[in-house]
């Protein structure tokens, strides 16, 4: 049994969340909680297996899994190296934590409504895991579609404004996916194969032809839309702001990063990045991300809503990753990957805390965050840690990705990028310290009766009377939050884990660099 698991690790890691999503509707026919718990159990197993896989890859180096027993160019192949293995652990970890985090949002909900959210969230995790581990170009398209569709659904579940922003995201997202499909068509027209490794061999002689250029342009636009790179980010602020509070950490934290990883894999592992043809596109990506870093931070300064501030800061942070891709040196790439890992932890931690504040006080405008640290000390500590890490204060994760990016830029002689890095982190400092001022110095204390928890309690009470079943007392009540802990234990677990993740990613990033080293040195 165990060698079956070990030999089929890549598939199990990706498909367990899918199995969870399929079981959830059937099981929740019998009992509401069992449906949710199956999804959490499957996501947990997938996380454990991805850790086992990472350990196996650190000593084996590369794993290639052929579906249906067919050799790669003919069948589909999962190709995993240390780069994708680390990302798999990150995605399944964040996914597992956010499934637990969303439990309190569904207390007292009808059987039908609660299983839907959980199976869509589980499919989002499966889509993200698949996008990271696939080695086949068209397979990446189908996983991209799964991720986008579950993204549309989760954003649409965030209320009426969420529906509108989800529709706009659907429009632009489909254009992005069609561009990517056209890119595949052009590359398929030139090389005749769909397997990335095989394609990297065949694309060499054809690199200078016009069609490959267009294919690269379409990839840049397609992935640019999906990862909300600067000029193509129209959909992103509204989508991240109005997403469902339980899914916002996963969407904002990880869903924006995996297309960036896919772009990195395309430009470095399929088209080798040192030829001057690819260089042109990387310069374009560099300009887009540099402008994005400045634009995102400036817009974030002007926001009053906490979530939209974080959304605009995500545009700036994805610019860091684009910068790393444009710098192309060993350190540039390393900086991009470390920033993907660091920033997804920071952003999901901030969205966990924003969801917790919304659950307890129902507040999202930053002015009304005054004195909440008295009642929610752990959440505010997590916000401080994540914000300081975003600004780039040394011992935390944000500093070290900036360090590698700046080092890569200095080695490559592009000093303008260091200047942009400095400006962007200063602008970050402006709006994050303004957040601290609002949190620690404002006098207007948020009142506890408007929180989502209270809202759920009221509805559950009405429902209990309707079904004349004894109403089980919840921690959140009409008058405010009465629980022993500051927020429900599931949420507190998520906040603490992500805050610890930031600290550990900061302190132990040298070990992370050692693990990622061989995979990146291979293409530099």
């Amino acid at each position, binding site marked *: 049994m165990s060698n079956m698991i070990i030999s089929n690790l890549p598939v199990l890691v990706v498909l367990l969340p899918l199995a969870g999503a399929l079981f959830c509707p059937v099981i929740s026919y019998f009992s509401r909680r069992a449906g949710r718990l199956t999804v959490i159990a499957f996501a947990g197993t997938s996380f454990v297996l991805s850790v086992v896989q990472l350990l196996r890859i650190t000593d084996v180096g590369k794993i290639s899994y052929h579906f249906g027993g067919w050799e790669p160019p003919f069948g589909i192949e999962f190709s995993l190296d240390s780069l994708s293995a680390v990302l798999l652990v990150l995605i399944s970890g964040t996914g597992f934590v956010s499934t637990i985090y969303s439990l309190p949002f569904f207390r007292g909900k009808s059987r039908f409504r609660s299983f839907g959210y959980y199976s869509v969230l589980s499919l989002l995790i499966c889509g993200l895991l698949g996008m990271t581990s696939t080695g086949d170009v068209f397979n990446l398209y189908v996983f991209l579609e799964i991720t986008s569709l579950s993204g549309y659904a989760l954003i649409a579940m965030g209320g009426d404004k969420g529906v509108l922003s989800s529709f706009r995201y659907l429009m632009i997202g489909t254009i992005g996916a069609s561009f990517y499909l056209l890119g595949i068509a052009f590359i398929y027209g030139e090389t005749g194969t769909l397997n990335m490794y095989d394609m990297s061999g065949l694309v060499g002689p054809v690199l200078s032809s016009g069609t490959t250029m267009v294919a690269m342009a379409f990839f840049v636009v397609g992935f640019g839309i999906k990862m909300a790179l600067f000029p193509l980010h129209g959909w992103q602020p509204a989508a991240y702001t109005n997403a469902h509070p339980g899914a916002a950490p996963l969407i904002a934290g990880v869903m924006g990063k995996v297309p960036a990883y896919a772009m990195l894999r395309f430009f470095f592992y399929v088209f080798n990045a040192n030829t001057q043809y690819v260089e042109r596109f990387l310069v374009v990506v560099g300009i887009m991300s540099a402008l994005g870093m400045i634009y995102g931070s400036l817009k974030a300064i002007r926001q009053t809503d906490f979530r939209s501030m974080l959304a605009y800061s995500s545009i700036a942070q994805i610019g860091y990753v684009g910068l790393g891709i444009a710098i192309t040196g060993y350190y540039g790439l390393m900086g991009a990957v470390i920033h993907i890992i660091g920033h997804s932890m920071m952003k999901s931690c901030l969205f966990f805390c924003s969801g917790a504040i919304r659950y307890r006080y129902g507040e999202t405008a930053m002015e009304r965050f005054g004195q909440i640290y008295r009642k929610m000390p752990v959440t505010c500590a997590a916000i401080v840690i994540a914000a300081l890490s975003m600004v780039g204060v040394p011992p935390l994760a944000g500093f070290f990705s900036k360090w590698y990016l700046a080092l890569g830029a200095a080695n490559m002689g592009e000093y303008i990028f260091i200047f942009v890095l400095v400006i962007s982190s200063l602008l970050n400092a402006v709006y994050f310290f303004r957040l601290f*001022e609002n949190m620690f*110095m404002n006098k207007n204390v948020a009142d506890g009766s408007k929180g989502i928890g209270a809202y759920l309690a009221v509805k559950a009470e009405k429902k209990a009377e309707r079904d004349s079943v004894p109403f089980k007392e919840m921690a959140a009540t009409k008058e405010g939050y009465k629980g022993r802990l500051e927020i429900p234990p599931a949420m507190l677990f998520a906040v603490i884990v992500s805050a610890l993740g930031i600290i550990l990613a900061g302190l132990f*990033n040298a070990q992370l660099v050692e693990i990622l080293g061989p995979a990146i040195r291979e293409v530099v």
Partner: protein
Amino acid sequence: MSETMLSGLLLSAVLIPAAAGIIILAVGNHVHRNVREAVTLLAAFAMATCVFSLVPAVLVGREASLTVMEIADGLTLSFKADSAGMIFACIASSLWVITSFYSIGYMRGHGEKNQTGYFAAFAGCLCGAMGVCFAADLLTFFIFYEILTVSTYPLVVHYRDSKGKYSGRKYLIYTLVSGQLFFAGMVYVYATCGTLAFTPGGFVDFAGSDKMLTLGIFLLMVSAGAVKAGVMPLHSWLPAAMVAPTPVSALLHAVAVVKAGAFCVIRLVCYTFGPEVLRECMGAEVLLWLAGVTVILSSLIAIQKTNLKARLAFSTVGQLSYIVMGVCLLTPAGMTGAMYHMVAHAFLKITLFMCAGAIFVTAHKADITEMRGIGRRMPVTMAAFTAASLGIAGLPFLPGFLSKMTIMEGARQAGQPVFVLILVASALLSLAYLIPVSYIAFAGTKVREEYLAYGPGNRGEASKLMLIPLLAALALAFVMGFFPDFGAHFYTFAKAAASSVYGGGI
């Protein structure tokens, strides 16, 4: 002592304040006040013992070094206790003990809110300061430098009112911007020189690139130190930070933040760029003249300030520029004088600030004009104030005198007679802005009616918890004046550091 013992002491010196900060933050509100204060005091004593037990080893020349972990690709978080670091560490740890007692008295006396945050941030600052002293390479130095910046912010905005908010913003703008410039310079240095480890005499050599680039990179990096040390164009956050409670100003101006800025200049000038490179690219010249101007200008401004704490702030700006000037003279004597002036200024300035705090808490007076005849009510405090101000001015038998003389010797060695004049002029100016205060306190003719009641019989002295640390600091200063090598052998360390950088010769 064995090698592992030394590195163990080194690591614990840095970790104790951090652990104390975290404990206070986590447990502070749920436990009785005294227990929380006990944690601070315990941590202060433990750190002081760790640092002072390192002194004999470093005196002998055995540098305790320790690599904690690999922090970035190819770079390690490593500590090293060399003589320059020891001076700053000993000042910081001994004064933390004194300031803790003082701030307990101040906080209790003044009935401050959110004290837990205060003491935790205090411990955080000390952890940053310790890291800055013992850092063995630029990256570790920058990490703890930023920790110091960030953990001082809650102290500056302690009163959480609008005034506090604006001075906090000004503080952040100056320190974060200069921190990022330092970061950019450090990246360039690592990219070109391949290493960041401090070596006496400097390791930077931008082969081939022209002088202007080296000057540019040097100014980029030294701006971080200059901001914290309050060199003139970048000093305006320091008076603005006077909004904070007095123990914080004491900490800011004597123990941690400002000294860290001066120490950063020392590390950059002597251990990173090195005297030859700077002499060639005129970097030290620029800084030298800036410091000179600062010394004169700040003393002039101090004279006009009627608020006692503002006056002391500008006096700090001036005194710190002594240290920067001493280092930038690029002569062994200059460096020794600068190092020792750090010690002298620390003990004397903290006494002045404690007096100002005591006056504020007991007599609720901040402005000098309202202090006519306060000597009748608080003779001991005002006597200490007068003694310390004489020490700052450079009276013999007080440490200020020895450090000023050495810096003058350094100026003579460097062939810059104009700076000798500047030093003498500033000594007189410092008398000009400090002595009037004690004159008003004692010999003032129009004594205010509220102090008439006080006479030799009844005194309205400050509480014991504030008076004892004040007198202890002054006593230490006096002892330092007679025996420069008392306790932590500050003067020998200064000479050892100078000789290691300039290769022998005082």
